[in-house]
């Protein structure tokens, strides 16, 4: 629910940004401040990124679906430390409240981007409205979020290591469980670093230290009393967290995609062990390539080369996954349910967005494109859209289990097609804006002739965004109306194999009503020759 609230705010912010970009002089209703000032645009940009990345793409796949389904899929009554879990949730809630309040303090929300780059973020109100109390609250909120995520992560890891049902070996875990497990390890190792960096930045702001502020900075003609810090140090610490964060958002979506593709093509996952290996490889490599976010920040070409190679290398496990997804689909009996459509959509946008990553991984090309909409298009497709498709797929798949009722498939399919086509209509033209030199983060292109000539394309993107955003109302309607009037779902509406489908929908307290399962087989045994059905559940013991 928290993530749902965050995603709604996040989408509204992006819609306002798009409206402003398309029609810079547009009068918004008075309560939103009339014509948008550049600093307001930057504040929206910052808060859109922050809310989406932390409170939606990090919180929803792991905090919502992972917490709910990891223990069930492993055959456990609950997460290892339920009270710690509760604490983690409430700290996240506090963090969210703190972040939203940043809108309502004097000066408003911060303007330094979701990356909070110093020294813009570290000097206080002199660098702009929102850089006063707003930025401080942003940092406190991020610090709290780090703590909540760390508590959650250690819970996930302990649960996976120690709470598996008898017979549930590591290589019998569903790929969703593998994804949550590796994601939790990434969270544990990376959010600790962000916490340290956030504390240092907070000290720079509040206690007069100079960790990230260089000497001799002049703002508005006034020399700032700081000495010798390094803005690059912030960037290194931030991206050491920030790149694993990308995989924290995408790995659970990959897991649920594998899960769904197998279930709805009625075939075992092609290359299960390779999938596990690729997940782990992405986890390891994800820590070695943060520097590709900093090619244009001033970096030795030798380091840039190393980061570039590591970045290209992560294409290998990603490609392994993609081939295995296609292999899973190959000659399967495909059921085009909404969950399946979103999983297929995930593969599509992940590949499309990933391809532009190969270009950006070259430092020489990146130095041209880094400040443009090309990068915006790239990460929105490969990370944001892909992760959102994963969240939608998971919702359509598990809603019957969580609430005991089915979602409306017709509405779901309409939702899918508009979202899928919409995603491409928004982000493909954005690549062209970027290639034509359209700079990102600018609030207004009116005064720059070559940018103004791209305006028709920008308006097209805005229209596409408006339609796509409106279609999400259909999803909300489907979600809430199905809660009351959806068709009743049995234990196993999708005829799937993993442990969440042996318990009632919704599961009782303790998940299995005291009768904990024992596991006898691999997670995706579909279409087993000579079996009485086209699927065999993990807990089925009779030999087939």
């Amino acid at each position, binding site marked *: 629910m928290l993530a749902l609230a965050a995603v709604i705010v996040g989408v509204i912010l992006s819609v306002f940004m798009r409206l402003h970009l398309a029609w810079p002089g547009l009068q918004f209703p008075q309560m939103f401040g009339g014509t948008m000032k550049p600093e307001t645009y930057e504040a929206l940009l910052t808060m859109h990124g922050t809310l989406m990345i932390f409170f939606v793409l990090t919180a929803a796949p792991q905090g919502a679906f992972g917490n709910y389904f990891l223990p069930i899929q492993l*055959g*456990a*009554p*609950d997460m*290892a*430390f339920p009270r*710690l879990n509760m604490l983690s949730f409430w700290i996240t809630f506090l963090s969210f409240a703190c972040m939203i309040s940043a809108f309502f303090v004097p000066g408003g929300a911060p303007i330094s981007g979701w990356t909070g780059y110093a020294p813009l973020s570290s000097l206080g109100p002199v660098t702009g409205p929102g850089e006063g109390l707003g930025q401080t609250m942003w940092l406190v909120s991020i610090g709290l979020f780090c703590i909540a995520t*760390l508590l959650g*992560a*250690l*819970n996930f*890891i*302990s*649960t996976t*290591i*120690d*709470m*598996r*049902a*008898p017979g549930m070996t590591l290589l019998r875990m569903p790929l969703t469980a593998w994804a949550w497990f590796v994601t939790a390890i990434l969270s*544990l*190792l*990376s*959010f*600790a*670093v962000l*916490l*340290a*960096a956030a*504390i*240092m930045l907070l*000290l720079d702001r509040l*206690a*007069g*230290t*100079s*960790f990230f502020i260089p*000497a001799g900075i002049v703002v508005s003609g006034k020399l700032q009393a700081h*000495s*010798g*810090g*390094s803005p690059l*140090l912030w960037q*290194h*610490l931030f991206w*050491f967290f920030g790149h694993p964060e990308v995989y924290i958002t995408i790995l659970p979506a990959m897991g649920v995609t594998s899960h769904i593709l197998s279930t709805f093509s009625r075939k075992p996952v092609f290359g299960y062990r390779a999938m596990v290996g690729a997940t782990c490889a992405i986890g390891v490599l994800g820590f070695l390539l943060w520097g590709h976010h900093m090619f244009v920040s001033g970096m030795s070409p030798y380091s840039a080369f190393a980061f570039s190679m590591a970045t290209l290398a992560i294409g290998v496990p990603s490609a392994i996954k993609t081939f295995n997804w296609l292999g899973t689909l190959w000659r399967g009996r495909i059921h085009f349910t909404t969950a399946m459509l979103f999983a297929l959509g995930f593969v599509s946008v992940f590949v499309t967005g990933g391809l532009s990553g190969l270009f950006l991984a070259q430092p020489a090309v990146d130095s041209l494109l880094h400040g443009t909409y090309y990068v915006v298009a790239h990460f929105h497709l490969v990370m944001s859209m892909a992760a959102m498709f994963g969240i939608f797929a998971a919702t359509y798949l598990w809603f019957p289990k969580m609430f005991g009722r089915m979602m409306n498939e017709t509405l779901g399919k309409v939702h899918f097609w508009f979202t899928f086509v919409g995603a491409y209509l928004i982000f493909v033209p954005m690549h062209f804006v970027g290639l034509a030199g359209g700079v990102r983060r600018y609030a207004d292109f009116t005064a720059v002739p070559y940018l103004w000539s791209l305006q028709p394309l920008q308006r097209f993107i805005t229209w596409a965004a408006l339609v796509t955003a409106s279609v999400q109302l259909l999803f909300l309607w489907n979600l809430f109306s199905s809660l009351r009037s959806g068709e009743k779902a049995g234990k196993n509406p999708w005829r799937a194999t993993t442990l969440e489908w042996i318990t009632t929908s919704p599961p009782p307290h*303790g998940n299995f009503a*005291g*009768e*904990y399962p*024992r596991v006898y087989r691999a997670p995706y045994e579909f279409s087993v020759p000579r079996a009485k059905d086209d699927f065999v559940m993990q807990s089925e013991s009779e030999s087939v």
Partner: protein
Amino acid sequence: MSENPRNSHFDSGSDSANGVGLFDTDGFVPQRTYVTGMMMALAGVLMFFMALVSAYVVRKGMPNSGWTAIPDLPRILWLNTCVLLGSSAALVFARAHFRAEDEAGFRRWWGASTVLGLCFLAGQVAAWRELAAKGFYLATNASSSFFYLFTAAHGLHLAGGIVGLIWVLMRPTRRLTRGTATEVAAMYWHFIDGIWVFLFLILSIER
């Protein structure tokens, strides 16, 4: 069932694993889960301090960093370090008494360890006051900033550990057995002590 909970020493029975696989009907988790959880927590703590230390190393090694070391670190830090190591040693004795089922001995040494931990914190505050008296504050220069940051971050973690030690001594535990509680608390305590030795080495050698 191969997964047996760790033996409990003073109390027994609350972690039975009979009948239904890993969990009893109340859903108690196996005791080793707490050990795993603590190991994961410590991995996070380690990353946190590594981030601070790497920032220190980078900041100090920057060209034209204008790095000026604090002339001489407060001597009391050596004493504090000894006190903290003593505290760890006391905890080892306490657990030995615990294993020998000597409740009085256990409480005595465990209490001693806690008190030594508090002494360490008091000593760290004394070190701060000494530095402040010499005119080195948090924002004076980079090395003093890092000094206060390291000691404060470590002090907070240690204070959390003291709360844990007192909790083990005072409160009966429900979900985890006393044996697990002492083990987990000791893991944390020794680890945070080790972190201090590492930070102190960095602060005194890499000045």
